[in-house]
Structure formats: structure tokens, C-alpha cells
């Protein structure tokens, strides 16, 4: 008996024992697991908003369940299995760290469809979906470049992973396009969520002379610090509207609702197929929060024009000529970055002075 047949028989056994619980259902049951609490005000909160949007849209045709604060690793695998056993036929695993667990569970439940956020492993019944946050960062970068008086903008990074590095590069490229004198300072907080540390990170940037802060961590602490110092910042993941009109002059919002509604609809009518998508502003997955009156009208117009150009596909934020930080060539004139290079990005573009953490 090899490992595969072991797994197969295990699945048969558990599936059989679970059957009575959902035999008589005609609703589509949709499950979600979140890495944080739904009250985190950021990442998991936005996924839960999208879940609510699904309920709103389909009403009685669907029944949703979620499990929050699921640690990555073994616990995720159990939570996913429990959701599958409870009769959920479409399951959204909403954190990168759930990747291997999702693939493992998907093998055991071939008739359940899985959607894994931000990962790179797919299967017959596992799709991946991700957001082109760097598109939104381009708009933030434009505003930042125009708004800075000290010509120093700061970026609070969570972890040095491709998604965040894309964001830093994209903001910097577009800040420099509108303001050739702009400099970018980068601080890595090594956390997605630690308000006190994020506040300290913002304060450190402000002490360096930074007056516009971009953040890639999920709490509002950096905005609070910016307010104290008279600097400005942007909402991250959610709108962070409590800090309007300043220091929060705009926001980059993760809007998963259109995608979730579409996929649940496909699961309902039977047209669901596994795929791997990376959606951006044009698809409504990356939203730009209201640009407040603290931003001059012409800057606002410029930012919105850029947003429109990205949304229509007319412009790609990573278009050559671009060089890497070390001066070597990356993209030739007019050349657009390919997705596969972006998705493993581990270098800064030319002009960023900060060292890449090793």
C-alpha cells in the first residue's frame, strides 16, 4: 500500500462518515478560512466583507461559513478538512501560508472546489487568485511624489516578499516620474500587524525627514503617527476612513467581492474551472479609496488619469526603460514586465538607495 492509496481510503472513509450531514442540501455551501480575526480591520476583514457581499448577492442560494484566526500549517489543514466534511463545496483559503494545506486537502476531496489567495500551486480543483497591488501603488506613488515637500517618501514594508517589493518599486518609479528629486526610505517591520511597532516604524521614517508614508502593514498606527507629525499617508487593505481627510489622503483597498461573487456564481451554474488569475484595478479587485481634498485638484486629476490608463490596460506600471538597483538592465524601452518575473521579484529598481534585506 503506497501513500496515495492510504490517502484515498482515508478520504473515502471520512467522506462516508460525514455524508448524513449534508445529504439533503440544495444550497451551495461556501467556506472561508481567515489567517487573522475578522476584526483585524485589514486583510481578513476585507475577505469577510467579500463573503458578506456573496451572501447579499445570492441570498438563499448560498450558505457561508468561516473560521477565523487559523494558524498556518497543520491547523489550516484541519480547518479546511472540517469545512469540506461539513459539506462546503467551494472553499476560499485566504492566506499565502495555507498553500500546501489547500493542495493536500484538495487531493482528498476531488469534488470540492478550492480557491487559494496569493499562492502559486494549482490543481484540477484548486484555483489561485491574487491582486495586482502594484497597480494601486503606482497611483499612491504619483500622489506621494507630488505631495512631498521634503522630497523624501517612506515605505513601511511587512516582509521582504515579492508582493511587497513590487509595491515599493512601483510607488518609487511613479513618484520619481512626477518628481525627479524624490528619495525613498524603506523600513521593514517584519510583521503584518503590530500597531506599536508600526507606529515606531512610521516615527523612524518621520525622523528621517519623510513627510509622506506608504504602508504595507495592516494597522492604522502609521496614520496616527503621521497625523501627529503633520505628515500624510494612505489607507492600506481597507479604506481607513477614520483618518480622512488628512493624514489619510487616499487608500489602496483590497476588494475581493467581485471575484468572490463571480466564482460563487460559476460554482452555482456549474461553469467553475480551475485557473490562476492576477486581477488589478481594471477588474475592480484593487480599488483606490477616495482622494481627499487635502490633495490639490491637479494632482488628483493626474492620479485618476493614471488609474484610468492602468485600468484600461493602456499602461503597465512596470514598463521600460528600467534598471535594477545595481545598475544592470532589466526592461528595455517600452518592454513590459512579465508576470513570472514580477511574481518572484527580489530586487529594487535603480534609484532606491535602501539595501535589500538579506
Amino acid at each position, binding site marked *: 500500500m503506497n501513500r496515495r492509496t492510504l490517502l484515498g481510503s482515508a478520504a473515502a472513509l471520512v467522506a462516508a462518515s460525514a455524508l448524513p450531514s449534508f445529504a439533503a442540501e440544495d444550497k451551495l455551501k461556501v467556506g472561508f478560512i481567515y489567517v487573522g*480575526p475578522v*476584526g*483585524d*480591520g485589514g486583510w481578513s476583514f476585507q475577505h469577510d466583507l467579500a463573503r458578506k457581499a456573496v451572501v447579499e448577492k445570492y441570498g438563499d442560494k448560498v450558505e457561508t461559513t468561516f473560521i477565523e484566526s487559523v494558524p498556518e500549517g497543520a491547523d489550516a489543514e484541519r480547518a479546511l478538512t472540517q469545512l469540506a466534511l461539513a459539506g462546503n463545496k467551494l472553499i476560499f483559503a485566504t492566506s499565502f501560508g495555507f498553500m500546501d494545506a489547500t493542495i493536500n486537502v484538495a487531493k482528498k476531496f476531488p469534488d470540492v472546489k478550492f480557491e487559494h489567495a496569493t499562492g502559486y500551486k494549482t490543481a484540477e480543483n484548486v484555483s489561485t487568485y491574487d491582486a495586482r497591488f502594484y497597480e494601486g501603488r503606482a497611483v499612491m506613488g504619483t500622489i506621494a511624489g507630488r505631495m512631498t515637500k521634503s522630497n523624501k517618501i*517612506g515605505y513601511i514594508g511587512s516582509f521582504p516578499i515579492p508582493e511587497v517589493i513590487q509595491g515599493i518599486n512601483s510607488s518609487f518609479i511613479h513618484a520619481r516620474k512626477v518628481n525627479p528629486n524624490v528619495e525613498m*526610505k*524603506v*523600513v*521593514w*517591520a*517584519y*510583521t503584518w*500587524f*503590530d*500597531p*506599536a*511597532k508600526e*507606529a*515606531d*516604524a512610521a*516615527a*523612524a*521614517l518621520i*525622523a*528621517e525627514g*519623510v513627510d509622506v508614508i506608504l504602508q504595507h502593514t495592516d*494597522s*492604522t*498606527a502609521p496614520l*496616527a503617527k503621521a*497625523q501627529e507629525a503633520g505628515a500624510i499617508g494612505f489607507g492600506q487593505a481597507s479604506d481607513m476612513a*477614520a*483618518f480622512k481627510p488628512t493624514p489619510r489622503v487616499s487608500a489602496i483597498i483590497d476588494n475581493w467581492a467581485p471575484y468572490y461573487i463571480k466564482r460563487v456564481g460559476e460554482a452555482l451554474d456549474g461553469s467553475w474551472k480551475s485557473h490562476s488569475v492576477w486581477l488589478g484595478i481594471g477588474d475592480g479587485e484593487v480599488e483606490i479609496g477616495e482622494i481627499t481634498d487635502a490633495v490639490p485638484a491637479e494632482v488628483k486629476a493626474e492620479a485618476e488619469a493614471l488609474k484610468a490608463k492602468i485600468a484600461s490596460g493602456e499602461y503597465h506600471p512596470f514598463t521600460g526603460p528600467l534598471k535594477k538597483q545595481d545598475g544592470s538592465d532589466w526592461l528595455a524601452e517600452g518592454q513590459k514586465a512579465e508576470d513570472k518575473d514580477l511574481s518572484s521579484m527580489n530586487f529594487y529598481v535603480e534609484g532606491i*538607495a*535602501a*539595501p535589500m*534585506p*538579506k
Partner: protein
Amino acid sequence: MISVFILLLGAATPILFAALGELVAERAGVLNLGVEGMMVGGALAGFAAAHATGSPALGFAVAALAGAALSMLFAMMTQYLLSNQVATGLALTLFGLGLTAMFGKPYEGVKAPAMMAGPLGLNWMIWLGLAMVPVVWWFLVRTRPGLILRAVGENHDAAHGLGYPVRAMRIAALAFGGAMAGMGGAYISIATVLQWTEGMTAGAGWIALAIVVFAQWNPWGVLAGAWLFGGVTVLQLRLQAAGVAVPVQFLAMAPYLATILVLVLISARQKFGRSGGGAAPGSLGRPFHALR
């Protein structure tokens, strides 16, 4: 340079409060690992009160009460029901985090009132934290209740024999510890972040525990420890912002290694008989039960 110091003072304040409170509890011989739970309790209660009344000062007062109330749960368990302090402290942290997450929902996305600005660009809580250092020192070293408290912590059987109220002293020390932890937590929600989010203390309580050891159970040492632990974070972020390549993980472990080193040095000094100061209270963590 001055700006770095101001940053450091702000970063050090929550852990300074919590560590000073825990220091008093430990000097009375009780090891309360529930600091994180009490801090997060204070963070929510303080934020809620400040939001409801618009007064941060009232917020801190309520935070102190909330922290003290949580510590009374611990006191009841360990002083009357004689449960193990380590296990009870861990349970208190779990309980506090869960309780605040449960009752905190209505306060998510709400903003705190403006903090009370104080002299020299520092808010009043920073000043209060600094002022508490000599106060705690004076209380422990110069007053009679302080002396009794230390006696209770050093050797509870002997203190009991002398007729000192071991249990009452410990409960009072725990209440103080809880109140201070609560205010430290509220500093994070009211002054640093200006919002409530669940789990927002993010391990500050555990750092406070380390600081007490680093401080050799001395209030001035707590101040130095809070500045060191807060300072390392501020410094590494500051160096990063200035574009210096920083080995973040190594810097982050440095204060803990320093704490172990300090602990070894004071223990060795005591063991090899040069001086008695600075070691852990003799009855730390041991349950006390009077037979008569």
C-alpha cells in the same frame, strides 16, 4: 538625536508601566505571566472609556481598574485556591485576549480622543511613567510597607512567622501590577495607535517580563531595561530608515541575550559571595499556605 530619544521614550512607556507593575508583584514573590492579558484588557477598557467620555485621563484610570480586576482573578486563583502561578498566568493571558476580542467588536474602527500633551513635547503619561520609577523605588526601599512586601517576597514563611500579612501583601502587589499593566496597555491603544484592534499589544507583556529580570528587580533597572528593549526596536527601525543594512533578527534577539547575560552576572556575583543585591526574590513563584 533628540528626536530619537523622544521616539524611544514613547516606545518604552507601555513596557515601562507593565514592567514596573510586574516588578512589584515579583518582589512580593508572585510570578504573574498574565501581563499580556492584563495589558490587552487595559488597552480595550481604557480605549472604550476614553472614547465614551472624550477624556484620555479617565481612560487611563479605567484601564488601571480593568487591569487590576483581571489581576484579582489571578490573585484569587493563586492566593486562595493555591493554583500554580505559571499555569494560571498563561491562562490569564489566554482569557484576557479572548475577552477583549469578544467585547472589543463595537470599538473597532473608532478613533481615540486627542492625547494630553505635556511639557517638552512629551505627553503626560510619559512623564507619569518616568515619575513612577522613583516612586516605586522609594516605596520598596524607604517605606515600612515596602520593607514588608520585600520580606514577604524573600521568605514568606519567615514573614508569616513575624506576623506579616503575606496574602494581603501579595494581593495588593498583584493589584498594583495589574493596574500598571492596564495603563501600559492603554498607552498603546490611546496614545500610540489611537484605535482599538484585537490583540494589539502584540507581545509587549512578554517583553515586560523580560525587562523585570534584566532590571535585577530594581526600578531603575526597569527604566534602563525599557529604554534598552524599546531602544533596540527604535534604533533598528531608525537605521533602516537611514538606509543602513541591519540584521534585524539578530538585533531583535540581542536584548534577550543581554538579559540572560545580566542574570548570569548577578547570579554569579551572589553565588560566589561578593554581594547579595540583585538576585530573584527568594520565594518567587512558590505558593504560600499558612499552616496556622
